[in-house]
């Protein structure tokens, strides 16, 4: 099963990863992105993620479909969390299942790179002395 979701609830990495497993597959590669305490030496207190939800879901699904054309993979799952996230909490989980692990590694890495370029979600870093909306690299 492929799935693309946006949620305000905490993410369970293992549970998400297992949902992409078809019987013919032997490996899942999962990326678990989470809130860093330090960004360029500055201490983050917490983050707020905001998304253009319907468009973000469409873009996530496009990425999954494109990944399945580019790589020999079986299933893709992408779940992004929105709202306030504390240090160490998972913001995004991307799981890819495939019969051969090489393709799963490649597809998972491609998916996170593309997600950061195209999926309309924004991150605000909150410091002790201010806050800033992070701008991606386009």
């Amino acid at each position, binding site marked *: 099963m492929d799935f693309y979701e946006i949620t305000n609830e905490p993410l369970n990495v293992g549970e998400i990863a297992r949902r992409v497993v078809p019987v013919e597959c032997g490996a899942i590669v999962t990326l678990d992105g989470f809130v860093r305490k330090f960004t360029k030496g500055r201490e983050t207190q917490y983050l707020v993620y905001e998304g*253009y939800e319907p*468009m973000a879901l469409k873009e996530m699904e496009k990425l999954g479909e494109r990944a399945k054309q580019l790589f020999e993979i079986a299933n893709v799952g992408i779940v992004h969390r929105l709202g306030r996230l504390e240090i160490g909490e998972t*913001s995004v989980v991307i799981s890819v299942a495939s019969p051969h692990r090489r393709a799963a590694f490649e597809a998972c890495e491609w998916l996170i790179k593309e997600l950061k*370029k195209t999926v309309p*979600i*924004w*991150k605000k870093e909150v410091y002790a002395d201010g806050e800033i*909306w992070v701008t991606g690299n386009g």
Partner: protein
Amino acid sequence: MNVQVLFFGATADETGEREIEFSFDENISAERAFAEIVEKYPRLKAHKLLFAVNQEYADGGEIIKNGDELAIFTAVSGG
């Protein structure tokens, strides 16, 4: 003809709005429509902006129709 215009993150902060109604002449292109909106909120010019029409990235050539959903935002930073 009326459309909805959505702002997110930095563009919501700059405009003080998250969602507005906006009126255009018929048959306006996306490029011209977004230019008009930016003129109304000039603080948006401080940012490199991305534009969407009906939840798809716009290339500017789209013809805007009554009831369309437009969005203006900065380079995404999810993940």
